[in-house]
């Protein structure tokens, strides 16, 4: 009998509805898959007891026809979402002992919709990284390998565990967070579908903050339809988050299959870069072709300030992070090293509790906010941010959606870029501007490079127009015939 983990989210949902199998059967297979994929190091905390207990309740609900939209579906959750009574670490030594007494709004919404927590997923420490190699709990291994089946590859980051678990078919979907590409880049590296919703679509309450003005939760799934279903249950207006939107939440699933005829697709010319690989260019061209065939009009557009997006991001995000991470001082919770002197206690606790990348960004952030440097860095970056946003809002007067590659390259080898932060930062060059402008964007697996690794296309939408993104993503998905991973080498 094939494992029930082969079923995607909507297939599992339909199977449960039709009573083809029980929630318990589904959960047991996923627990089994989770335990037998430990080589990938995707999970920091496995919660099989919670999952099995929840499965009983879900089976009762199916029996009584009181099942909810995601009843009985197992999900992995990035370890940035606070989960009540379950270890939540941000993949940091600093929070390696932290058990929140509260549940984040997004996960709470999911549990209220019947979904089941399978475990907490590994990520870059405090989401700072693009390869999941900065985690205190070790790197996550990409389930994909090159055709030669040799080197272990990174899954991307920061939502590396979220993407790897979905690619490995552990859980029917997962939650990630995206501050500069942390959902879309790992989705692209693992052949999964990852959406960063519009800023404000999902509540940030209970999500451990990296950069508050950029952070946004989103779903990673095996296909576009699953993604739309999961997003519907994640978002809500939350009075506990002032920046959460009051906009009505549409039925995202119903936007799949909608015609895109006559809609305009913008191709931002600044995303075309010198030295871009032929494979990326070819994938991009294919994407244009597929959308054109479906009746859309392709228009070249310009987003002149694109080149400033990355430097702007690496000022604003660290600035906010340096302040957001000040609360980890060893006084009230988390890692703590005591001393007879309060300043020494701070120094010991924070030196030992944070990893190098986090320290690097705290120092950058502290520097750019310091008196004498504020105007030259932070204030200027805020002005540039407005210009970038303006580029997008003006371009969206002419087009309905934009199409770009998700990343400049496919997954790289473990340790390949660890000592070169700048080259690591360049991984986010196509994703970062979208967070700066607060827009929704989705990465869809579209092709494989010559060594057999997945590549993703990115669709960028107007504010709060995730529906159009899903309509377009669905067409790319259908046109690309992307073959998902079939070699579960880690089981051997």
């Amino acid at each position, binding site marked *: 009998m094939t494992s029930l983990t082969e079923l995607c989210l909507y297939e599992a949902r339909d199977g449960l509805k039709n009573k083809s199998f029980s929630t318990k059967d589904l959960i047991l297979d996923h627990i089994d898959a989770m335990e037998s994929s430990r080589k990938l190091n995707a999970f920091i905390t496995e919660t099989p007891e919670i999952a099995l207990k929840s499965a009983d309740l879900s089976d009762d609900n199916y029996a009584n026809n009181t099942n909810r939209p995601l009843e009985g579906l197992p999900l992995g959750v990035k370890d940035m979402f*606070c989960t009540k009574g379950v270890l939540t670490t941000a993949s940091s030594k600093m*929070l390696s002992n932290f058990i929140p007494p*509260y549940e984040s709004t997004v996960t709470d919404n999911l549990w209220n919709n019947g979904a089941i927590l399978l475990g907490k997923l590994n990520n870059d420490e405090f989401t700072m990284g693009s390869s999941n190699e900065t985690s205190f709990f070790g790197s996550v291994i990409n389930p994909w390998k090159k055709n030669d089946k040799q080197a272990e590859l990174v899954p991307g980051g920061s939502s590396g565990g979220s993407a790897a678990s979905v690619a490995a078919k552990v859980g029917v979907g997962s939650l990630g967070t995206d501050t500069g590409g942390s959902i879309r880049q790992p989705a692209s590296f693992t052949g999964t579908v990852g959406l960063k919703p519009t800023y404000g679509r999902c509540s940030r309450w209970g999500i451990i903050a990296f950069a508050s003005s950029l952070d946004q939760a989103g779903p990673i799934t095996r296909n576009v339809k699953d993604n739309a279903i999961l997003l519907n249950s994640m978002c809500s207006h939350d009075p506990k*988050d002032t*920046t959460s939107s009051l906009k009505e939440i549409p039925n995202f699933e119903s936007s799949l299959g909608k015609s895109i005829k006559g809609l305009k697709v913008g191709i931002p010319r600044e995303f075309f870069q010198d030295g871009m690989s032929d494979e990326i260019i070819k994938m991009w061209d294919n994407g244009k072709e597929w959308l054109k065939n479906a009746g859309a009009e392709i228009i070249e557009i310009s987003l002149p300030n694109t080149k400033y997006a990355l430097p702007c991001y690496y000022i604003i995000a660290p600035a906010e992070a340096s*302040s957001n991470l000040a*609360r980890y001082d060893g*006084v009230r919770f988390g890692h703590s090293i005591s001393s007879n002197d309060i300043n020494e206690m701070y120094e010991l606790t924070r030196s030992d509790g944070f990893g190098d990348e986090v320290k690097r960004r705290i120092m950058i952030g502290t520097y750019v906010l*310091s008196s004498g440097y504020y105007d030259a860095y932070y204030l200027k970056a805020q002005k540039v941010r407005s210009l970038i946003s303006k580029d997008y809002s003006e371009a969206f007067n002419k087009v309905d959606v934009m199409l770009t590659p998700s990343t400049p390259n496919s997954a790289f080898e473990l340790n390949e870029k660890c000592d070169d932060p700048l080259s690591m930062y360049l991984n986010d060059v196509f994703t970062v501007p979208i967070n700066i402008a607060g827009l929704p964007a989705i990465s869809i697996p579209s092709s494989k490079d010559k060594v057999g690794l997945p590549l993703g296309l990115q669709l960028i939408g107007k504010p709060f127009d995730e529906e159009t993104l899903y309509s377009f993503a669905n067409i790319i998905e259908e046109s690309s015939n992307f073959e998902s991973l079939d070699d579960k080498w880690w089981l051997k």
Partner: protein
Amino acid sequence: MVVKMSNLVTGKTGDWEIVIGIEVHAQIISQSKLFSGSSTSFGSEHNTQVSFVDAGMPGMLPVINSVCVEQAVKTGLGLNAKINKFSIFDRKNYFYPDLPQGYQISQFEQPIVGEGKVVIDLEKGVEKEVRIERLHLEQDAGKSMHDQHPSYSYVDLNRSGVALMEIVSMPDMSSAEEAQAYIKKLRNIMKYLQTCDGNMEEGSLRADINVSVRKPGDELGTRCEIKNVNSIKFIGQAIEYEAKRQVDLIEKGEVIKQQTRLFDPKKGQTRSMRSKEEAHDYRYFPDPDLLPLTFTDEFIEGIRKTLPELPDIRRKRLVEDFDLSPYDAGILVSDKETADFFEIASKDSNSKLVCNWIVGELFSTLNKSNKTIQESPVTPENLGKLINLIDDGTITGRIAKDVFEIMIESGDNPVSIVDSNDMRQVSDEGELESIIEKIIQSNPDQVKSLEEKPNLMGWFVGQVMKETQGKANPKSVNELLNKKLLK
């Protein structure tokens, strides 16, 4: 009116002028904190009024309490200040155990309230205008306790996140008296507005005093900021000490260093806390968790409509409607409760007499027993009745003081006190005449001496009063004695 330059401090090298600016931290009257739903009640068990937001737990977000915003706008209007229709919250970053988030949410470049002014009341009816630079909203920190354990410090987060208004004055004050008058007036205005209870002992009103000295007409000198001055009295002491310290230093040829200093109430001195070089770089930046505050004209006008009568206006009204002197009215309105007491007491009574009795007998009695006017055993209604008894001749002024003492003791109604103690004034001419006759009969020597010493008349009056236990109507007594003795 021109303020005369008596505020100058005389040093060895001549006269010096003191320049004072004050930053007041006023705790807003509200049920819950500025960014969380926790209660603000004072004196609760340690760490019991603390939400996850107040404790700076991971993933927690602030949500603005609209009541606190309205209170700040109301205070701004009460200070005749410009309300900014667009203002933003900033983070002020520093590490301290009683600051759980590692930053204080405050307002830096764009505060909720801009420039305003306060008229302060000085001695002899002199008034002076003190300009307000700004008022902004911010959250309070928790409280560090260093005296609970020999080697540990404790932190109480009950106060963490409580809403404060920081009110910054311009350096418009030039003496301890003016600074004290400013604090009194500010406190009084906020009590009228019910936006801050002004309780300095409990810390709901705290003042940081900036002091510098200069030769009259010179540029501003280097200032020192004095923290921890938590009473009106200490404000006076701190300024006088600090000004003298600065003058002495300069006259010795030394330079004033910009510092933050701490007032020691036991010694009546200020001492250095940190120098400008040691000052924090707070790395202010807009808080990305909070949207800017934006107001419409309707919102501001709506709050303006709820403003109560403020002390300066009330004083004018008391002068006009109750026929009081501006000085007396000023005394009454300087404390909202006193003015309220006065208005109730004089509702059906002689207002001038009521005022005299409040400022005289009532104040001195309350002072002696260390009570506020709200704790007065004599209710304003009963004081009004007492005044009426005097006014309509039912009792004499002298008896009234006895009645008042009984009222203080028992809290009883003066009418029943007078009745049950038979204290009514004797004005019956027949009764008085017979008493006077008796006194004349039994004191022939005194009657004889009266021709040479007209002053002896007072002695006769006294005798009549003694005979009637003070109840005789003095006017009738005088008339009758004159008739009988000065033929």
